[in-house]
């Protein structure tokens, strides 16, 4: 892009004549077209949340509601118990993300910096289990949680959410910590820093990876359907929002506008998280996959 202060008629004309200008005209037009289709379902959900049931079924492709009506949000929050589900989702995603970041940072650090008996075995097992479809292990996970007496409790859901994943995150941390220059560790050792001090010294450097893990794990647990569905079967009040939208399914009908409001409620916090951490995002992954 051209700098504004250097924007004389001449340089502007040169830029307009350049092939990058023509490339941009074509690409940006194309991308805007695709973007409109891409976000259409989004915009549709948001506007539907303000429609009445009747308008919803007659609107077809029309997006804007006739009049803005906030009743649906009230219906979703109160009648459909999204107040409960929202709280549950926050607890599940928050706790599972915190556990995930801590355990994978610690494990990744040790794997990246130290040689000890069992290191290769752990590393190889993590790699191998990265490629196992989750459908195959949910039954024993269910039985383990049941044997621990944690079925239909929040703790059980959180344990299952933070236990099943993690292999990829450990590899991200391992990759990042192996790229930290030797000198930092050497000088820490010369200064007499012990094991834990050294870890606390280099942990802030891993901010990009931490940001990445937070976004990925938060997204995964916020949107998780399978685990909360199975682990809170007989306690509907412990459902998260993704499972809780079943509350909009009536005996013979489906409350579409309430559902749209529920969806809007559930996506706003995630968008916030993404905007806060997106600066770290790509950089973190880049550092992590260098290995």
């Amino acid at each position, binding site marked *: 892009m051209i700098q504004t202060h250097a924007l004389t008629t001449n340089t502007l004309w040169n830029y307009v004549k350049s092939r990058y200008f023509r490339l941009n005209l074509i690409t940006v037009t194309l991308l805007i077209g695709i973007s409109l289709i891409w976000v259409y379902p989004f915009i549709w959900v948001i506007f539907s949340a303000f429609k009445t049931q009747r308008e919803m079924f007659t609107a077809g492709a029309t997006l804007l509601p006739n009049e803005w009506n906030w009743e649906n949000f009230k219906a979703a929050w109160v009648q459909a118990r999204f107040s409960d589900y929202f709280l549950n989702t926050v607890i599940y995603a928050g706790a599972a993300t915190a556990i995930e970041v801590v355990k994978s940072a610690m494990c990744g650090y040790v794997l990246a910096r130290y040689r000890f008996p069992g290191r290769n075995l752990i590393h190889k097992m993590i790699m191998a289990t990265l490629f196992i479809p989750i459908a195959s292990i949910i*039954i024993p996970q269910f039985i383990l949680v049941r044997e621990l007496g944690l079925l239909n409790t929040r703790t059980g859901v959180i344990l299952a959410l933070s236990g099943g994943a993690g292999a990829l995150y450990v590899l991200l941390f391992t990759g990042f910590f192996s790229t930290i220059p030797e000198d930092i560790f050497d000088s820490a050792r010369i200064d007499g820093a012990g094991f834990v001090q050294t870890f606390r010294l280099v942990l802030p450097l891993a901010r990009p990876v931490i940001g990445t893990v937070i976004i990925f794990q938060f997204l995964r647990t916020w949107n998780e359907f*399978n685990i909360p569905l199975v682990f809170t079967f007989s306690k509907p009040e412990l459902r998260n929002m993704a499972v809780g939208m079943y509350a909009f399914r009536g005996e013979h009908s489906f409350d579409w506008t309430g559902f749209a409001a529920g969806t809007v409620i559930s996506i706003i916090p995630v968008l916030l998280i993404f905007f806060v951490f997106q600066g770290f995002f790509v950089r973190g992954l880049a550092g992590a996959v260098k290995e």
Partner: protein
Amino acid sequence: MAARPITIRQQISRRVSARIEARRRATPYHYRVKGLDYVWVYLFLLPFLVLYIGFTLWPLGATIYYSFFEWDGIRPLENYVGLQNYRTIIDDPFFWRAFKNTVIFSITNTVVKLPLSLLVAVLLTRKWLWFKRFFRTVFFAPIVIPVAMAGLVFTFLLNPATGAVNDILVNNLGLLDKPIDFLGSGGPPFGKNWPLISLIVISVWQIFGQYMIYWMAALQNVPEELYEAAEIDGANEWHKLAYITLPIIRPVAIVILFLALVNALKVFGLVVTLTSGGPGQRTYVVSYYIYNQAFSSTPFRYGYASAVAVLFGVTVLIAVTIQGYFVSKTQSADS
């Protein structure tokens, strides 16, 4: 005319392979653990290992073990049936239906989403492009909708009577005479394959942002000076992509490929809410089959469901191993 691109390619390739070689040599250093640090090392591993053993390793072993029993998950585990579960699965046409659908879904899904997201990632990392941040956000956005909710949104949008898609195609654009029942009986040109095709398209739309981010991260590993040097040699965008970008990101690309395939094989929530496996098992997938056997049949058939999981997992493992074998073969043939 043909001579010039070859010299450009050779020039570029020499620099690229030097870079790859240098990176391979730079292996990270590991301290040998001494004294009290042993305690710390294993203490640091403990939280991960406890959860990993409890929720990944043990479940893997247990699934294999359960698969030899007829078990409802409640009574004691004592009805050993040997390979009976496996025989029943092999004779069950529903399983094979689900298996076939899952394989078709996973391969098509991967073949569509990976090249497209790579293309978009390359485009959205070009320095000259305007509104990069905006477009990145747009392509990332669908991933914030829970998969299950996305499924429901599309049951409405694709509805033949009230949905927006048919409304646009029939009334606004006039492309169709009558609406298509995308998730039901289908219509021209794909007939009864529409439900599975819709499932694939929606899943690509939903997960696209994640793979775009993976690719963008991989692209950051390509040193800018290689592009600059290539430009001086007269390389165009295609040369840069084929001779610099792709060779450098290949190790990461292989990991992304495997992740993409395995994640596609897990498809569940979208199927449940979009089609419930229907119509007539046309979108029935293995994870849904396992779920039905384990949790919605009476009595629960945990043993049988475990056998399904094992059979499916082993098949996937074999497929991945074969794929890995060919990938490593082509790689060693190249270098």
